[in-house]
């Protein structure tokens, strides 16, 4: 008995199992986080059925079933419903006590409206109006057909309005440019000097001429616009909420509407795909809580590209120096220590450095030298995509150095010595032997740097990221790439929508989807890097002489 016990102790079964437990918990944590994000991120786009509940006191609510829980105080089961209709109720969600609910139903003709403003609307369609006149369904037509038809018409009208407005802006552009120059002159106080005054008068004359030239066109467009806008305003749906209140919704403010309770799995899937596409390809709506995240994806990609342009050459040079040029000794030890430490410096410290050095010191000097006419409004002296990229380049530098070194170390010594023995210079050897063979390592470094850069937020939020950028940093106007512009970023989008938005509960699904997108990007990049690295190892295992 005693010996058996001591044997067990010696064998340490308990410790072995404990270490297994440690691993299982760690893996369970990873699985947990991935599953939550997958479920919540992907579930959001699925069109939820619209539930109508009638309470015992006669009230009635309609919306998507959101959550259920047990209230700890009263021990009553409660149901949370997303009732939408923010313009009617003033809130998006409601908790109902289950014992007060008299009946639940899923009415066939319940409609979900996605709107430009005030979030979703849940209700029934009573009638459709075009030009203030009710549209009656024709023979063999249902009200539903009519509504889809008038919505299409309203969307056409809206598009025409947009086109006309764009046309007007284009016609006005030369005049606007002249007026801008005049304002600049005025701001600079040039009117007080004789030459400045003359310049100003010339511009004034030019502006008057332009005005005369384009005003007939503008008037024509304005007349057209007026009719269209009036028609747009007079086209609406008469809808009814669950409790019988009727309301008018302008057709052009409806992004899309559907009858979720009637939809089968196939039509729901089609709807789902459409929503998914909207998410990655459209602009955000309603202070980022609806619509898509295209500008954030665009900003992330552009920032990461700029960062790569800066970090890869620098990192590769440093790695080559460490392995091919530096002599073993204090310097190389110091550089390695620097790389290690650079990797360990908190990202926010890079952010602080970026803000103080790039934005205020370098950017401020650039403004003084080249953009002094615009001061005190800063051009480069404020956060922008260039400064954010450079800050991240510094942050990801060690990643590139370490990965490139790994690649260089994997190049067999014999190959290098062979090249030198044949009379090549060191640079020729590096160019023809080391670099091509270290390419997978460099690529690994690049990918890991991109993945790190795409996920980093703290340094960006103080060097140029904004919640809503009015324009992309890359567009059709000269000089096409606007390095001074602020940009949107997926990671910051998560922080901003999840924590800074006024309606966090309604914004949550959007945040999960964005998080999922970011994780997919980052994880794919990492898997790719791991794949390349493993192949690199295999390749050189066989090529030793």
């Amino acid at each position, binding site marked *: 008995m005693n010996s058996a016990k001591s044997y067990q102790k010696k064998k340490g079964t308990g*410790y072995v199992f404990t*270490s297994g437990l440690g691993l299982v*918990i*760690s893996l369970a944590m990873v699985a947990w986080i991935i599953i939550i994000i997958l479920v919540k991120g992907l579930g959001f786009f699925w069109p939820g059925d619209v539930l109508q509940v009638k309470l015992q006191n006669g009230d009635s609510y309609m919306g998507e079933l959101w959550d259920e829980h047990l209230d*700890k*105080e009263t021990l009553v089961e409660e149901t949370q419903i997303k009732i939408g209709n923010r313009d009617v109720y003033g809130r998006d969600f409601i908790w109902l006590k289950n014992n007060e609910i008299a009946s639940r139903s899923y009415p066939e003709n319940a409609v979900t409206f996605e709107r430009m403003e005030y979030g979703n609307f849940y209700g029934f369609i009573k009638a459709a109006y075009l030009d203030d006149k009710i549209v009656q369904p024709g023979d063999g037509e249902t009200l539903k057909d009519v509504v889809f038809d008038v919505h299409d018409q309203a969307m056409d009208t809206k598009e025409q309005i947009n086109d006309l407005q764009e046309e007007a802006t284009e016609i006005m552009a030369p005049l606007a440019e002249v007026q801008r120059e005049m304002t600049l002159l005025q701001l600079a106080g040039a009117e007080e000097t004789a030459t400045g005054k003359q310049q100003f008068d010339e511009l004034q004359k030019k502006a008057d001429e332009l005005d005369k030239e384009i005003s007939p066109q503008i008037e024509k467009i304005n007349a057209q616009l007026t009719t269209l806008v009036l028609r747009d305003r007079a086209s609406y749906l008469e809808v009814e909420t669950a409790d019988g209140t009727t309301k008018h919704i302008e057709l052009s403010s409806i992004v899309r509407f559907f009858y979720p309770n009637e939809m089968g799995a196939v039509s729901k899937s089609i709807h789902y795909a459409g929503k998914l596409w909207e998410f990655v390809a459209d602009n955000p709506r309603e202070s980022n809580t609806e619509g898509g995240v295209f500008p954030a994806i665009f900003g992330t990609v552009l920032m990461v590209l700029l960062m790569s342009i800066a970090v890869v050459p620098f990192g590769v040079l*440093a790695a080559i120096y460490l392995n091919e040029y530096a002599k073993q000794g204090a310097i190389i030890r110091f550089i390695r220590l620097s790389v290690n430490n650079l990797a*360990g410096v908190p990202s926010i410290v890079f952010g602080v450095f970026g803000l103080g050095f790039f934005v205020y010191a370098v950017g401020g000097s650039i403004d003084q030298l080249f953009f002094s006419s615009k001061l005190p409004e800063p051009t480069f002296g404020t956060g922008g995509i260039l400064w954010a990229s450079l800050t991240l380049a510094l942050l990801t530098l060690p990643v590139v150095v370490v990965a490139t070194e790994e690649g260089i170390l994997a190049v067999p010594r014999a190959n290098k010595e062979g090249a030198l023995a044949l009379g090549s*210079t060191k640079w020729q050897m590096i160019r023809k032997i080391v670099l091509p063979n270290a390419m997978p390592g460099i690529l690994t470094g690049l990918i890991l740097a991109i993945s790190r850069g795409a996920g980093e937020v703290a340094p960006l939020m103080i060097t140029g990221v904004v919640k809503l950028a009015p324009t992309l940093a890359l567009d059709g106007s000269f000089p096409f790439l606007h390095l001074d512009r602020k940009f949107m970023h997926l990671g910051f989008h998560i922080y901003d929508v999840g924590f800074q938005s006024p309606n966090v509960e309604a914004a949550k699904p959007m945040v999960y989807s964005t998080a999922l997108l970011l994780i997919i990007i980052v994880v794919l990049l990492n898997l790719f890097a791991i794949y390349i690295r493993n192949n690199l190892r295999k390749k050189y295992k066989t090529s030793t002489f």
Partner: protein
Amino acid sequence: MSTEHKTPKDFRRKVERADRWSRRVITTGGYGIIISIVSILLFLIYQSLPLAKGASINEILSMPATRSENPVVLTGVDPYLEVFYELDNRGSIKFYNVDSKALIKEDQLPLKANEKILTAAKGNLTKEIFTVGSDSGRLITSSIEMKPEYTKSGRTIEAMVYQEEEWQAATENDTIPNHIEKLTFVENSDGTRVWSWIDHTGKLWLRIYDAEDEEEYLYDLSEDISGQITSFSLSHNAENLVVALKDKNVYWFDISDFEKIQLKDRWTLETIADAVNYLLGDQAVAIGGQDGSVSVWFPVRSPANLFKFRKVHEFISHNAAIDQIYVSSRNRNFLTVDTKGNVKLHYSTTGQTQLEFKPADFPVTAAAFSPKSNAILVVDGQKRFSLYNLENPHPETTLKTLFGKVWYEGYPKEEFVWQSTGGSDEFESKLSLIPLIFGTFKGTLFAMFFSVPLAIFAAIYVSQFAPKRLARQIKPTIEIMAALPSVVIGFLAGLYFSPLFEEYLMVIFLFVILLPLFFLIALFIWQRIPEKMQARFPLGIEILFVIPIGIITLVFAMSFDHVVEQILFQGNFQQWLYSTLQITYETRNSLVVGFALGFAVIPIIFTVSEDAISNVPESLSSASLALGASKWQTVRRVVLPAASGGIFAAIMLGLGRAVGETMIVLMATGNTPIIDLNPFNGFRAMSACIAVEIPEAPVGGTLYRVLFFTGLLLFVFTFIVNTLSSLIGDRLRKKYARF
């Protein structure tokens, strides 16, 4: 060969040139790494260094005493330091240009013939309005405007004097006319004006003009006070009056209700106060004593919920009696002037005397801060006017305020407080780094408690006990965990885990308590299984064994949490915590942060220590096994000691990551800068504080530099941790490398 290099010699020259250039460029790249990290360090130091700089002055103007025959009673300068004025006791106001020293304008207060000004007082910190009291009992209130005018040739200052009002104090059946001996005056932001003065009979009067109701009030305060008055001061918001007496008593009147003046407090000093003055913020009063002592007092809430004035800061004493105190309009700076003409500059919050200077050999008759507090002007008894540039960018930070306890206005005692911005310009900024440092280490501690055992056990299992095939798949999985962006973890912690923890707190507690229990029971059963059968299970059975235990524990915890909560904690654990232990439960608390930081820290510790354990030479463990040690004994006695360097390095790296992590702590805590070990409330970490506050901080201001300094602290800390980790890791590795 192409046409470019015609001869082999040319070709060689070209190749060699390329070689030389590439060597230069690559070497630059290598040194670039050192340059980057050193420049980050130097830049952070460069930005935070001005915090340590004290105040300094340099004289920009000294005008000799030839202009006026009469003593000067009041002086002031415009915000751009271009024009200054002097008011003498005959009511003549002269404006001079600072650069050219030329008289640019002269004006005259409406004094009668032979009427002399006995006293003068400014009434507002931001604009030049003042009252003079004369020897015929008149209070004449005037204002001066020094407005910048922009013309082609640049900026000129246009000086104007406006007469605001005159008022005659009654001469109550007296043979000699009423004298205004000493005066204080205030106009607050509503336009309400309050005057308080002592007449020739020694009586203290209070006159109020209420701008809102356009009503006037006059009080004789001598009824409440018995004794000779030495000095008195009105608060700038016209709500308080303090009066110091020759018997060392000080009286505090609440005059905010104009219809009912209230005596709120009375206390005794150790010396006679010859000068008192309210500082910016209207809380603290600077008191200068006849013995030369300087102190700051403000009301502190007593246990009986009454406000009592307490001496909070004491400054370096003068050698002579102090007769004047001047207050800055920008911060808690004030000047004390003694009867021998020595001037000292103090800062109330820090309790520091920053400067001492003696403008002349004669006593000072009038002094002032410039409107932006960037200059000090002094007129001495010989009517020499001096203007000093005051360089004092960060008076509110000293080592003591950054790292020590400070007694702030309105607080009951000395405390560590971080509160960088307030509602008004008069806000006293509280920049103690201790709550932030505490917050950072609180979060780190919870994270390390949670992650270190998990990660190291997992590393031991994967490298020593797991089947090789499994191990190859697990490593990349954990590496993926390392790649999860911290913003995603932070967002989940803030919006998913924290409400979940709040709702299922009891389940989590039960799980943590029951898991070891169930684990031991299961282990006991396992050991009863005969050896032969145990051997038949495949390698890695431990994992399959552990998973059901975890699931059973979870199910058990979830089904009995209500029961346990009812029996032990009266049905609501959070409420029980509050009512029994006075611990508040915040949704976003340190437990959640510790758990969430685990996602960031575990993969680092795991990967590095797994590498270290795997790299222990086969020969060591083989020898141990051959000598008959069990697998676990080999791990415990041979492998772990050999890998201890790597494991230590891993923990250090994890520590560095936890200390610097920003987004997780930003999103998963409430960011309240409190010092409290309670695991159920939040904290404010250094990193999160920088991220939140630096975008709003004015460039070059104190907050901006303090945040840079915080960044420097983080940098230095992680630098030390990283260097330690590589040094000690190396040394331990060498120690075992001989095997």
